[in-house]
Each structure stands twice: as structure tokens, then as C-alpha cells.
């Protein structure tokens, strides 16, 4: 039966080729779309977690705005002791995030102050790699680093004095002088124009909070382990007034973007599947109409109606299989090409307002998604064959033999 089905597939070479081409191009387009969106999402998460959020954060339990924790962790040494024993952590660091005022000799402006542990920060975020002038934070306890937009607005040059003012826990204003050690350029308007980095110890002194911080940032060896490690930390820190947050809790807007993109992808998938199904249906109906007499002959010599139905389904499956294999090859080659050379997308300009985001997307294989798409094309080709196969098996042999 398979031999007969295979030869039937190729008896109208041009028509089968067009159907197979439409399936292959459809699948390749789906794979490309999946890869592009997943690659954008991957880079989005990578940049967000790698520039500021980290993979996991530990904050006070009663924080309302995760990005600007307004409560302090009272016993950071106890948290550090737990983190040191936790497997899967690449690095962690104490941080204070808060808003404040940055003043140069000429002017002042509001800013997000990110007070970090300089010696650990290079293993948590990639901010040091964006330095274009001077150096990132190091051993200098009074160093400050800012983006080039802010430096320009404040009319600051390397080595010049900057005063940082922030509100202490008791409501009083603290102020401390720093020297501009480095200037970075990320391409993100937010980072380059609104964020300053300084040592956490200096910030603790400025705010008079002792050794307390308002959160810990943790970078993992494998982002895929986020949920597992977050849960383990929750269990280890149970009893303390703390909460363990995953990157997707802190950067929930990224999750929203991902959901929107996934929904968009699903709609595109459905449209492509509908096109594939209509193509297969058309091919099978044409083929069926041309071969009504032949089905009559097969039934006359003893083929059961269910056998004829199976024959049509196998023909469709083979058609789908060839289209799927070719589609997988074309899709894989496209992804490999843009994975190596990158794909320039204007998306970078839009996203880089919020986080450092490149214009070039390096595409990655998403084999579970690709396998789903390939399987769906096969299923669609089978579903499209149900109506023609039912029609074929309901033919009455005598009527079929009279068909011209």
C-alpha cells in the first residue's frame, strides 16, 4: 500500500511539488518566526538580568515596588551565609537601589542610584563592559560611574566631584561627595541618562544604615535553574521576613512582552497551518476527482472501503512528510545563517530605551518549538485528508467505475 501511495503522490509531479513547496515554505517560515521571537526573548532576558536585575533577588517581605525596595534587610550576614552554601550560584552581591539627587558644580538632576559591591558586580552584570572612558568601580571607596548622557547633562569630566544626595531611613537627607571614575555608554537612554553606580559601603555610610542593604542580587550558572534555586532559597530563608523573587517577578513587564509575542506567534502559526491545510485539501480533492474510476477498480478487485481511506490518508501523510523534511532543512539553514551572521532588527532601537539592547539578533534553534511545528504540519496534512478519504471510501464501486 505504501508503494502505491508513494507512486500516487508523484503521479502529478508539478501539483505535488507545489503542495510540498507550500508546506516546506510554511514550516520554514514558522521555524524562522519561532526562532526570531524566541531569540529576541532570550536576548531580552539576558540583557535585563545581565544589566541590572540578576536571576534572583532577595528583598524584605513587605516590599511593594520590587525595583525600588523601600525596606532594608536587617540581617544581611545571615542571608549571605545561606547564599554561600547554595549550589548553582555564580555570584551574588549586596545592593541598595534608591532614587536620589546628583549634583555637579554646575547643575543637578534626579537619578536612580545603584549601590553595588564592586568586586562582585563584574560577575553579576555586564555594566563594566560598557565603560567607554575611565574605569568601573574598584577599590576607590568614593568612586562613582555614570552614563555618558548624564555626564553630558551634568557637564562632568573624569575625576570631577559629584555630590550624591538621598533620603535616609529616618527621613533626613544625606549627602556625600564622590569623584567621577568612569563613563559608560550602553545605548539605552534610561541607563545612559538616569543611572549611577557607586560602592554599597559608601551608600550605607551616606544613609547611616550600618551594614544593611535593601536587596541581594544573585546570578546563577544556569538561568534554567531559576525556579528550582528560588524555591530552595525560600525554604532555607523561611522564618526570616524576606521574599525570594525570580527575574520574572521583578521584570514582569518582560514576561508580558513574551506573552504578547507568543500570542502573536500562535496567530501566525494558525494562519500558516490554515494555508497548508487548504493546499493539501486542494491537492487531495483534485487527485481524488481524477482517480474516482481507479478507486472503483481497486474496490472491484477487493479493496475494502477502509483500505481505500487508508490509502488516501497515507498519500497525504507522505506528502506532509516530504514537505516537513524539506521545511526543516530550509528552516534550519536559515536559522544557522542568521545565527552566525545575526539579523538586524529595528526592535533594538525600541527596546534599548529601557535596557541595553543590541540591533542585531543572533538566532537560536528552539527545537521543542520546531518539533511542535513540524508535528503540526504533519497532523494538519492528515486532518486535511480526512474529508477526501471519507469521500473516497464512500464511493460505490459501480458508480466509481462509470466515472469519466
Amino acid at each position: 500500500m505504501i508503494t502505491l501511495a508513494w507512486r500516487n503522490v508523484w503521479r502529478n509531479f508539478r501539483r505535488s511539488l507545489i503542495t510540498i513547496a507550500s508546506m516546506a515554505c510554511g514550516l520554514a517560515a514558522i521555524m524562522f518566526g519561532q526562532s526570531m521571537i524566541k531569540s529576541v526573548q532570550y536576548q531580552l532576558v539576558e540583557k535585563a538580568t545581565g544589566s541590572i536585575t540578576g536571576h534572583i533577588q532577595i528583598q524584605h517581605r513587605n516590599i511593594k515596588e520590587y525595583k525600588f525596595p523601600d525596606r532594608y534587610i536587617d540581617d544581611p550576614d545571615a542571608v549571605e551565609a545561606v547564599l554561600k552554601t547554595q549550589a548553582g550560584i555564580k555570584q551574588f552581591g549586596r545592593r541598595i537601589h534608591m532614587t536620589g539627587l546628583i549634583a555637579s558644580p554646575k547643575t543637578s538632576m534626579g537619578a536612580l542610584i545603584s549601590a553595588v559591591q564592586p568586586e562582585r558586580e563584574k560577575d553579576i552584570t555586564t555594566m563594566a563592559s560598557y565603560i567607554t572612558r575611565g574605569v568601573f568601580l574598584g577599590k576607590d571607596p568614593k568612586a562613582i560611574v555614570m552614563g555618558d548622557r548624564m555626564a553630558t547633562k551634568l557637564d562632568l569630566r573624569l575625576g570631577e566631584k559629584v555630590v550624591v544626595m538621598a533620603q535616609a531611613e529616618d527621613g533626613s537627607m544625606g549627602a556625600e561627595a564622590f569623584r567621577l571614575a568612569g563613563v559608560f555608554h550602553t545605548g539605552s537612554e534610561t541607563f545612559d541618562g538616569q543611572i549611577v553606580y557607586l560602592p554599597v559601603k559608601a551608600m550605607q555610610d551616606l544613609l547611616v544604615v550600618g551594614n544593611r542593604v535593601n536587596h541581594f542580587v544573585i546570578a546563577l550558572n544556569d538561568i534554567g535553574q531559576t525556579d528550582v534555586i528560588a524555591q530552595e532559597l525560600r525554604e532555607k530563608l523561611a522564618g526570616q521576613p524576606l521574599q525570594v523573587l525570580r527575574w520574572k517577578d521583578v521584570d514582569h513587564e518582560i514576561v508580558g512582552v513574551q506573552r504578547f509575542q507568543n500570542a502573536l506567534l500562535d496567530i501566525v502559526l494558525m494562519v500558516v497551518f490554515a494555508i497548508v491545510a487548504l493546499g493539501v485539501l486542494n491537492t487531495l480533492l483534485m487527485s481524488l476527482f481524477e482517480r474516482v474510476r481507479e478507486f472503483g477498480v481497486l474496490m472491484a478487485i477487493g479493496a475494502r472501503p477502509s483500505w481505500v481511506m487508508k490509502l488516501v490518508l497515507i498519500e497525504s501523510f507522505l506528502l506532509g512528510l516530504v514537505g516537513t523534511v524539506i521545511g526543516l532543512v530550509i528552516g534550519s539553514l536559515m536559522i544557522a545563517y542568521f545565527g552566525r551572521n545575526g539579523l538586524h532588527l529595528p526592535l533594538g532601537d525600541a527596546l534599548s530605551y529601557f535596557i541595553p539592547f543590541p540591533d542585531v539578533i543572533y538566532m537560536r534553534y528552539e527545537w521543542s518549538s520546531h518539533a511542535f511545528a513540524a508535528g503540526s504540519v504533519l497532523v494538519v496534512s492528515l486532518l486535511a485528508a480526512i474529508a477526501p478519504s471519507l469521500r473516497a471510501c464512500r464511493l460505490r464501486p459501480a458508480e466509481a467505475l462509470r466515472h469519466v
Partner: protein
Amino acid sequence: MFDGGTHPHPLIEVRHVTKVYKSGTKVSALSGLSLEFQSGEFTAIAGPSGSGKSTLLNLIGTLDAPTHGEIFHGGRKVTGLTPEELADFRLRHLGFIFQAYNLIPVLSAVENTEYPLVLQKVPAHERRARAMEALRSVGLESLAHRRPDALSGGQQQRVAVARSMVHRPMVVLADEPTANLDSKTAASLLDLMQGLNREQGLTFIFSSHDPAVLSRATRVVHIHDGKLADSPAPDGVA
């Protein structure tokens, strides 16, 4: 099960069969026809175009169902069987030859010939041997691997004969088997069918309106306007 030839029943019995086609207007193709066929016959069904010859063959061959009446093969009633049961019945007991040859174009001569055995799930080596034997008996062994489009009309009809007999049916039904052939090729095909009838005892029932073809038959049943044109026996059986 089918028991043609070894019991008191006729090989095929057609009882009071009527066939009405309903395509817009009702057309009566057969009207209360009753007939019997015995094993080993070489019977022709004769009549002008539209007389009901093909309809009768289709009903005997279980390719169509009568509007009224019953048909028995070897004493077993076949009217009323399900489409799946009828397919199994045809596969085991009937062979068909069509006017337009009706070979499967994507299969070679030997593949066409062996297809009833494929449907019977006969092992590959056995069915190929039997198909080659059938082709040998119709003189086409050397063309076994040609596809139908590389064969002449006469050769294609010989392949159809080989296909109709490869599974050793009790009867071969042939609807105007020589109508598309020239007279020389038609005579050659009839020689072949007669030889198979005489030497292998294969029962043939075929339709034709060609006197030269009818003259070869050992029995001729004449049909006109869906009724027997011969003087029927008192009980209505020809």
C-alpha cells in the same frame, strides 16, 4: 461460505432482480430478472446498448445493489452484505475484466497482476511467483515490468485477464472486454479466455453485442430493455 461447483446450488442465481436508477427521473435498467449460471460456463450476455448488460454484470459482481430481488453465489445470499463484506467476497471469489482495461497506471504489469494477492496479504515472494505465472499464461511474461502506458490496448487487456485470474476466483466477469480492441486482438483475447475456460475450468460471464464475440460463447443470454429476450423457463429461470 462460497461453495461453487460442489453442491446442488447453481454457481450464481439471480432472483427477480430489479434495478432502478434515480438520477432526476427514474430509469429502470432491469425488471424482475431471474437467471442462473453454472460452474464452468463460458456465457455471453448479449443485447443492444442500454439493454442492462453492464447493470446485470455489476449486480452479479456485487459492485452495485439491486433495487429489488436477491442474488446468490454458491447458495449464499450476497445482497444485504456490508461494503466491507462485499469487498472481501469479491477479493476471494470474483475476477473482473473491464472494457477500458482499468489498470493502475503507476504500477507495472506484474504489480497490477499481483494486486489482488497484495490485498489478500499473500507473502511477497509467493504473490510475485503467482503473478508471473498468470502473466505467462496470457503470454506477457517478457513485458512484466512495463507500466500500462508502455503496453498496447491488447496487451493491457491481457494483463487485466491475468489480474482477474491470479487469485483463482470462481468466476470472471468481463464487461465488453473486446469493445476497445481491433478484431484480430479481440479474437486473440477470446482465444485466451476460452483456453482458460477449457483448461483451467475458469467460469467466464461476459457481455457483448458483437456477433463474432457471441459466437464463441457456449451459452448466450439475450437481454432487451432490462428483461430476458429469450423464452424463459416456466419458473422464470433462463
